């Protein structure tokens, strides 16, 4: 018999809650047919011996949603029928579901976590940290919103940010149009996304470029149009991927320098002097950047207030930008 009257529309959160309950209560796991025919939210629309395609699709989406929320969902193959989705059984791992007992937070730690969550102003990281705080609230101690009179904010405005975070956590390849500076048109890149890193105020994607079969780092700002999630599984990031990329970027930043001279008294002069890592060399400034093209963008913005002394590549990159501006407005 059905667990619910067919007429009632069960809200998503209620259906997914019932699904978690059903899957954590079972030791041996439930088959898809058992789930769809008995769990609140599916059962009312299940047709015995009929077409349940729509319900099955909903179940697939629910599985993805639960995994996104950190519910450890397991798929168990029936011996001798590996890969047969009709015979596969599902359950929530009772070993992996609970937070380890020794993880408790002091009032001060709760305050730090609340500050950490406030770093994100928008987008998926803000939603994720809000939910994380709710989960940690069940541990009892709750601190009020910490106020230090000094708030760091990290923006995730790039439209690419959310799909890339999703792709990394789901382990899927992505495809996007990328405009390399100097190229006339963007090129489509297909990559395994490995880590998202903000360095010097810009978000970078570190990835394995599948077409070139080599690691590459992309600036999110230069991804044009939509980032598409592919069905193809991505190669797995190494455990310390983010630290690894960060160290690489830092090293690159140390090494890639340029010598520029800014008009005394100009805005360019004060901003370049105050830029992190800048050093005086006579009447010129040694400035650092992880990427010559990014630096060229920044320097080009200062127009006649800057003169680039070296390297020669940077001189031509900046002049190319000015020439392009002149040509487009001539």
């Amino acid at each position, binding site marked *: 018999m059905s*667990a619910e009257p067919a007429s009632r529309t069960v809200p998503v*959160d209620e259906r997914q*809650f019932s699904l978690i309950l059903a899957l954590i*209560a*079972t030791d041996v796991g439930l088959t898809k047919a058992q789930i769809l025919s008995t*769990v609140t939210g599916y059962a009312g629309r299940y047709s015995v011996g009929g077409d349940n395609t729509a319900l099955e699709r909903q179940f697939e989406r629910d599985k993805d*949603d639960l995994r996104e*929320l*950190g519910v*450890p969902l397991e798929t168990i193959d029936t011996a001798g029928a590996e890969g047969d989705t009709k015979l596969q059984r599902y359950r929530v791992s009772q070993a992996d*579901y609970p*937070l380890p007992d020794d993880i408790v*937070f002091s009032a001060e*730690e709760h305050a730090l*976590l609340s500050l*950490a*969550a406030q770093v994100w*102003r928008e987008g*998926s*990281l*803000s939603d994720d940290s809000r939910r*994380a*705080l709710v*989960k940690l*609230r*069940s541990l009892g101690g709750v601190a009020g*919103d910490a106020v230090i*009179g*000094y708030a760091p*904010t*990290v*923006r995730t405005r790039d*439209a690419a940010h959310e799909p890339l*975070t999703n792709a990394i956590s789901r382990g899927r390849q992505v495809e996007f149009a990328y*405009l390399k500076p100097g190229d006339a048109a963007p090129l489509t890149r297909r990559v395994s996304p490995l880590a*998202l*890193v*903000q360095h*010097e*105020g*810009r978000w970078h994607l570190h990835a394995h470029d599948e077409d070139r079969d080599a690691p590459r780092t992309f600036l999110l*700002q230069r*991804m*044009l149009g939509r980032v598409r999630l592919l069905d193809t599984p991505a190669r797995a990031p190494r455990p310390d991927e*983010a630290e690894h*990329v960060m160290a690489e970027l830092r090293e690159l930043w140390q090494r890639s320098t340029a010598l520029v001279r800014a008009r005394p008294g100009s*805005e360019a002069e*004060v901003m370049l002097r*105050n*830029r992190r890592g800048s050093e005086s060399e006579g009447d010129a400034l040694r400035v650092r950047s992880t990427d010559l093209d990014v630096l060229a963008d920044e320097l*080009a*913005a200062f*127009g006649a207030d800057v003169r680039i002394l070296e390297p020669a590549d940077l*001189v031509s990159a900046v002049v*190319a930008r000015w*020439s*392009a*501006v002149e040509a487009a*407005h*001539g």
Partner: protein
Amino acid sequence: MAEARKRPLTAADKLTFLITLVPYLIEQVRVSVDEAAAHFDTTPDAIRRAVTLIATSGVPDEQGAVLPGAGMFDIDWDDFEDNDRIKFRQAPLQDQPRLSGREAAALLAGLQTIASLPDFGGRSDIAALMEKLTRGSVVAPAAVAVAATEADETLLTVRHAQAQRQRLRLEYTTTRGVTEEREVDPIRLDTVDGVAYLRAWCLTRDAERTFRLDRMRSVVAVGPADDHADSSSDPAQLIDDLAGQLWVTVRLPKDAVPLIADYLSPTAEFTEKDGTVDVPIALAHEGMIGRLAARMAGVGAIIEPASAVAATTEWARAAIAAQSGD
């Protein structure tokens, strides 16, 4: 968090609340609806609805059969209905849930950002907290990270003055390239993507103003500051020095709009034609025209008004001339 509360809750938020509420209620043994509402920063009604939903949820048995009302949750209904107290005699899902890889990653990267503030320099407890979060994640936290930046002299001086309620004297260079001396009383300090902004009462202008720390040529504390009301301005609106009264229209491929994202007003109206858009942009002054054009170099252009187009050409020619040393 006041910011977050205004947004409507998603299904994911509601589900997270449900699976978190159960272990809390079990741990409390018996708790009033009001107390639970205060704990989760929600309304008593939201708690009552959630408790009713939880208490009437059923679990199919091993054969997949569910009897209506025969859930595994067993609540003291009388206590709930008569006294507004919640007491579960039995409940599955008593365990606190782990964090998802993305949830842990969001807090970890947030902590990294906090740890690089001068206020938190040298605190070892953040590392211990990060280790706990990593262990509390169901899978390895997604690789998201924010590079730490060391606080420079200017930031340390400004932060110290703010904390000690000191007045600051600045030599400040505006986007027009004019350097002025200002006396200001710090109100709030923010960093947005690593760029530090001081919101302060400017005694020179007798008004609240925002100052970018990297435009300060010098900064010194000059005695006690007056008291000022907290600034109500949103950090996101701090970057107001791009906005202004000089209207220009730019034309660029629709896909390239992200390149000029920080020049766009949230209400900007795009005119789209064949994958190309015309966007009106308000600039603070004429000196910003070349800067905007450079941002779109090779992709788009300023198309109106004619005076702005001419100024752009002039700007680019002057830059090329200065570079070649003419």
